[in-house]
């Protein structure tokens, strides 16, 4: 392995100040990233807890463990917590926050106070949502479809809506901060086409955050107003149009999937280049495909509504546009594969997670094409096929990328290595557990099992038991890293500035970095992935 000094640097961003206030009032992007990391990890386990209850209930065909109403609350809160409080902020708010300024050679984001404010907004929205959960939860599904959410549901729709509304602004502010930072804070010589692809991916993500999130904000606000004052914007009984809600909701919530997956794609590009010791094949194609996904992503929302009553022509157009998203997505997958091809593969845990990403994302993407086909979608609409598809993207894709990134940059963030053997084992467990959980759901959906029911016919039991068993394995797969990451903070081997011998400005500094990141502003003279010029010091 790489020889390093056995001591952490004397001064770094973690030990420069101590005390709770030094964290709660910090303007350092790295500390804010850690605040986010802790918060979203808590939300991840809360969302996971709801998933556990769902899968336990579905282990038997009868509705025997939870009542139907409780089950409705469980899948709703699983979705709300996981989407709005874990997946959306996951990579951008933690790894993005930590790495973006370092990758472009800046001391911090353009607006450090705004960055801290966004965390407080996130926490405020989270607390309100948690309050809604504690006082009885919400049962509308994470989609809040009207008129059920406005006229029928007796649960805490308004409180949850307010929580989601508020949290949205934290996402908007993060996106805004990133775009300004990427435009205005790059180090001398760091041209757009020398930027790491992680930065390109975050630029595209940020565009979606600032263009899409306000629309869900106003939509949720209208739902709350309609519930509170019985105005008839979405309620057909009052002359309103529930399909308008669906349009507005999916105008954000489809692109939101790209908020989750694009940062993961950025991680994959970095990891693939580093562990195959090659320049990313077709750099500019990969960079522009991120932007293409962001743009196309805004034009496909109505494929969620093929059965909601739309004209055949509209369905055809949205179907076609949805297929077209496959092009930039496939560009990425092919280019990563081409990068790996004949590379000097160094099979470390981050790369294992990335392999998981590429395989699962490909399956999730291809089954997305099934759903984009307006005819086939009618057959599998609102079945477990859809559930399996989006979990392949959001868990198999987004979280795999998140795990890869956490492992890859963990030594940078804390100066110590995670235990490699355990990490490889965890990657394997997650991959096996994930597929056992969600692959049977494709079959269940194709056979006609609808989503969001707490009981099902007996012939579906075998596949459901497989899925529940897989979820257990998956849960263990996520708990193992939790344990060894915490262990490594104290007992991990000291990593040194660049344990992977990776390119990128973030690896030119000490680990953990100084508060100011760099002692002098770096000057960039070459592209992001000049691995061919780099001597590999691995034994």
């Amino acid at each position, binding site marked *: 392995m790489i020889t390093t000094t056995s001591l952490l640097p004397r001064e770094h961003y973690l030990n420069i100040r101590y005390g709770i206030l030094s964290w709660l009032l910090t303007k350092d992007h790295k500390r804010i990233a850690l605040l986010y990391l802790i918060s979203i990890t808590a939300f991840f386990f809360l969302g996971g807890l709801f998933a556990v209850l769902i899968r336990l209930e579905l282990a038997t065909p009868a509705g025997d463990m939870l009542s139907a109403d409780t089950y409705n609350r469980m899948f709703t809160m699983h979705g709300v917590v996981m989407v709005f409080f874990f997946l959306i902020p996951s990579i951008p708010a933690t790894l993005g926050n930590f790495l973006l300024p370092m990758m472009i050679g800046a*001391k911090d984001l353009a607006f450090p106070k705004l960055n801290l404010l966004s965390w407080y907004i996130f926490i405020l929205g989270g607390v309100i949502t948690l309050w809604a959960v504690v006082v009885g939860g919400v049962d509308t599904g994470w989609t809040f479809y009207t008129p059920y959410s406005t006229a029928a549901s007796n649960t805490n729709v308004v409180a949850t809506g307010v929580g989601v509304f508020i949290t949205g602004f934290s996402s908007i502010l993060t996106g805004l901060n990133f775009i300004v930072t990427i435009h205005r804070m790059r180090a001398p010589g760091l041209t757009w086409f020398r930027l790491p692809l992680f930065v390109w991916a975050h630029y595209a993500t940020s565009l979606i955050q600032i263009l899409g999130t306000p629309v869900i904000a106003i939509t949720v606000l209208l739902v709350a107003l309609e519930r509170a004052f019985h105005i*008839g914007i979405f309620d057909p009984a009052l002359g309103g*149009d529930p399909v308008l809600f669906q349009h507005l909701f999916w105008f954000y919530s489809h692109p939101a999937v790209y908020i989750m997956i694009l940062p993961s794609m950025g991680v994959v590009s970095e990891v693939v280049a580093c562990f195959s010791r090659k320049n990313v094949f077709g750099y500019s194609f990969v960079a522009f495909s991120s932007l293409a996904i962001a743009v196309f992503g805004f034009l496909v929302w109505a494929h969620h509504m093929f059965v909601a009553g739309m004209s055949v022509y509209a369905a055809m157009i949205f179907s076609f546009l949805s297929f077209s998203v496959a092009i930039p997505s496939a560009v990425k997958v092919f280019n990563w594969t081409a990068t790996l091809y004949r590379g000097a593969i160094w099979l470390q845990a981050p790369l294992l997670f990335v392999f998981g990403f590429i395989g699962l994302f490909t399956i999730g993407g291809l089954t997305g094409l099934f759903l984009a086909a307006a005819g086939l979608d009618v057959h599998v609409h609102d079945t477990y096929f859809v559930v399996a598809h989006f979990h392949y993207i959001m868990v198999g894709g987004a979280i795999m990328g998140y795990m890869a990134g956490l492992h890859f940059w963990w030594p940078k963030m804390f100066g110590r290595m995670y235990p490699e053997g355990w990490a490889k084992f965890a990657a394997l467990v997650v991959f096996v557990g994930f597929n056992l959980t969600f692959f049977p759901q494709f079959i269940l959906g194709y056979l006609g099992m609808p989503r969001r029911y707490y009981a099902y016919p007996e012939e579906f039991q075998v596949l459901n038991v497989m899925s529940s068993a897989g979820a257990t394995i998956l849960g263990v797969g996520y708990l193992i890293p939790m344990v060894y990451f915490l262990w490594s903070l104290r007992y991990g081997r000291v990593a040194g500035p660049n344990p992977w011998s990776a390119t990128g400005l973030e690896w030119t500094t000490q680990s953990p970095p100084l508060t100011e990141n760099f002692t002098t502003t770096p000057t960039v003279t070459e592209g992001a992935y000049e691995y061919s010029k780099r001597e590999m010091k691995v034994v």
Partner: protein
Amino acid sequence: MSNHVAHVHHPALQHQFETLEQQQESATLGMWLFLVTEIMFFGGLFMAYLLYRIWYPQAWAEGSLELDIVLGGVNTAVLIGSSLTMALAVRAAQTGAPRATVAWLLITIALGLTFLVIKGFEYAHKFEMHHVPGPGFQFEGPHARQVEIFLSLYFAMTGLHALHMVIGVGLLSVIAWMAHKRRFSPEWYAPVEMSGLYWHFVDIVWIFLFPLLYLVDRAHHFA
């Protein structure tokens, strides 16, 4: 870059920036991006407006006639005037005239408050007429339900706009105080300029709201 070195010790320069120019450019870009999010935010309401105007043209015409075109027209003039005084405040800050900056900002704030007071009278009138959507809503005519949707959107759109006005007045008050304390100079007046951008945006939203809400089918009515 050598001419930037002189700015390094400027008290307004934040640590993450190299130069004051970089800081000012960042602030301006950030503000423009924020305004983009605002457009998308209002956009959801405009979408709803568009849909129901196509669905219920008759109710839109009837509902629009319930709005007070005189008060609405006066408010439009007040707001456009406030955009002028805001622009003059930015100009004064740019040319290093702090007293004029404060004066123009105070006039802008006064015009903003005038707008809000007039809006308040309009709302009060709607309450008296039972034209506020909800259980107490009353309206004579065959399209009462649809007129209620029109008025729901009226309250949502103008209410959200008024909220932005309130925030704007608060923002300008802070800026006026800072200008009074001589915090700005020709090298550093980004907060004044950005508040100006925000104020003009809120003005422009009203420029769209006024015809869309007050002027539906008016010409036909007068003819």
